[in-house]
């Protein structure tokens, strides 16, 4: 490149010192970590959480089951039973850590990849498969489970989350331990969308009880993080007037601790926090994607060493918090759950075509009624042979 080099200068280019600040890509260690990749427990001054062995085993169980169900969904897609699947492989700790940090009264607004959070919210894991199989567009009741529908339009849900959080404040449901909080999930790519930045503005101005949880899995489909930012994402928050923190997204303990604190701050009226969970999408963007076109194997391997499950297992083993019986039983349980899921997917009925006319409007519409009737009559002409 001879011309226009300026536009493509790497972030490390030589600059005046004022401009250098914050431009360096920080080492991975610039984040909150409680459990190292090799499974050692480390302390962090701001996030001093004790986990009982029971809790640790519980988190481990979630991680394993969530990964297993995800793998099953990927397999189902490969076999033609799902139209597409967006795997969470590699992001289990970010999702289980934050998902378990939610209190019962908290509300979550997911993207299309939050199967782990959905699981933590107690929703039947069959639910999202309807969307990906193409039999519905999200089956659960968002208000019942305090977990909104999956949102595919990038970033849109961050505004919904912020509005919901404004409503919490209006309801007077902030300021105590019983206060409610909201978590909005989104990816690294989403940070470029206007909506996400508008959500930051709103949350700040209205001091809303919302936690922005960005899973920075390093890619937006094929585009690496550098296409969205040249500084760490968590730093975005300060300019909007609220704290940002980066957490090791492959460390379930740290994700739990950081999210718990941010949610508790929010419910106590302290306003929003941005959490950047620094993680990696180990698989393809979706089953339709071919990541070998845009990233090299060695990068994936390097992240394998930081696997969220392996490190917790090492820790459990080292501290004798769990033994082989536990691990073996868990593996069986996961396999059973996955098998059950598979069976239920296979027996999911196709929707009745006429149902597509339902629920367009809460109070209905004569135009839709007429189209349904006409179409029903039309379909009947086939019943008698065409």
């Amino acid at each position, binding site marked *: 490149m001879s011309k226009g080099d300026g536009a493509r200068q790497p972030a490390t280019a030589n600059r005046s010192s004022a401009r250098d600040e914050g431009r360096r890509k920080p080492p991975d260690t610039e984040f909150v970590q409680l459990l190292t990749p090799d499974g050692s427990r480390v302390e962090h001054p701001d996030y001093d959480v004790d986990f009982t062995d029971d809790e640790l085993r519980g988190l481990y169980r979630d991680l394993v089951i969530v990964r297993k169900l995800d793998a099953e969904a990927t397999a189902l897609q490969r076999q033609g039973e799902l139209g597409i699947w967006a795997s969470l492989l590699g992001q289990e700790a970010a999702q289980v850590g934050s998902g378990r940090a939610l209190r019962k009264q908290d509300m979550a607004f997911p993207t299309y990849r939050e199967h782990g959070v959905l699981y933590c919210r107690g929703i039947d894991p069959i639910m999202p498969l309807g969307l990906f199989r193409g039999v519905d567009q999200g089956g659960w009741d968002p208000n019942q489970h305090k977990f909104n529908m999956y949102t595919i339009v990038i970033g849109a849900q961050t*505004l919904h*989350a912020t509005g919901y959080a404004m409503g919490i404040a209006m309801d007077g449901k902030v300021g105590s331990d019983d206060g409610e909080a909201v978590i909005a999930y989104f990816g690294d790519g989403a940070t470029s969308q206007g909506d996400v930045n*508008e959500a930051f503005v709103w949350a700040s101005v209205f001091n809303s009880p919302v936690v922005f949880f960005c899973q920075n899995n390093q890619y937006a489909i094929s585009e690496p993080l550098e296409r969205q930012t040249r500084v760490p994402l968590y730093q975005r928050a300060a300019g909007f007037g609220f704290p940002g923190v980066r957490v090791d997204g492959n460390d379930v303990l740290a994700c739990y601790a950081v999210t718990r604190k941010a949610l508790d701050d929010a419910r106590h009226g302290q306003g929003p926090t941005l959490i950047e969970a620094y993680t990696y999408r180990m698989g393809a963007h979706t089953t339709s994607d071919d990541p070998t076109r845009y990233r090299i194997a060695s990068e994936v391997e390097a992240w394998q060493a930081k696997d969220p499950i392996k490190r917790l297992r090492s820790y459990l083993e080292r501290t004798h918090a769990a033994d082989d019986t536990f691990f073996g039983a868990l593996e069986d349980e996961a396999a059973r759950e996955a098998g059950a899921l598979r069976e239920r997917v296979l027996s999911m009925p196709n929707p009745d075509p006429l149902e597509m006319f339902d*629920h367009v409007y809460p109070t209905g519409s004569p135009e839709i009624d007429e189209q349904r009737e006409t179409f029903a009559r039309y379909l009947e002409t086939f019943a008698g042979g065409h």
Partner: protein
Amino acid sequence: MATLTLGKAINEGLRKALEDDAKVLIMGEDVGKLGGVFRITDGLQKDFGEERVIDTPLAESGIIGTAIGLAIRGYRPVCEIQFDGFVYPAYDQIVSQVAKMHYRSRGKLRLPIVIRIPFGGGIGAVEHHSESPEAYFAHTAGLKVVACSNPADAYSMIQQAIATDDPVVFFEPKRRYWEKGEVDTSVAHSEAYPLFASRVVRRGNDVTVAAYGPMVKTALDAATAAAEEGRQLEVIDLRSLSPLDLGPVFESVRRTGRLVVVHEAARAGGLGGEVAARVTEECFYSLEAPVLRVTGFDIPYPAARVEEEFLPDLDRVLDAVDRSFGW
């Protein structure tokens, strides 16, 4: 009975809605202290507080996006878009979220959101302040779209729009804000003429004229002028643009055999085409002439000093009536 301007009638309707239901919120740019650039929300923040009449940051996607969250939380947000031309930054939230959430959730979520949009030209404004974007919304399944044309309707329709669980895009004919009419504020909105229904506003047997929003008055003026020449125009205020309530139009056209549709929006892809197509399908053998459209031209809204030429007026409506009879 009170004599109110159309703008004041909406203001009173909003006030009533705020009184009737504590979940109703008003949100938008400058709707609070200022009372909106057209003063449609005048006095409401003073009386209902900053929690219920909310001056928002300056971002339309944010207004609609947060309104969605508030609606999921159980509120009934009434969002003001300051001018027609500024609704587009919110288009994604309206078309992909507001319109589709009830459907996507198989009925589990309801978004009783009203999006108020002052629309149309004729006020001598600069660019982006005189748009007629209603067809963009009427083509979007999951939204209901209405337009009021007179103070009495404005008063009841805004309340009905807020009361229904359907998301409603509510078009207000800004150049008619200052026109006065009788409003019976003692009639409950549930007793008033239904929201999603068109209405014959003048009887006549020679030709049918269908219009909505600001063009209803234009059509009525044309009817008055035509009557002097001995021609009786039946004028129908469509009121509901999605769903269209064309029953009264069919009935009328079967009598008159002629239809002229009037709107300010561009002709290409405007609602006039939809009305024409459906009326022709329904009344094929009754039509003495094709359905004619009197609309804005297929050009961007022009500079204010030529808007009177751009906008359909009495003469152009009468010209179309003449052409219909000349077929």
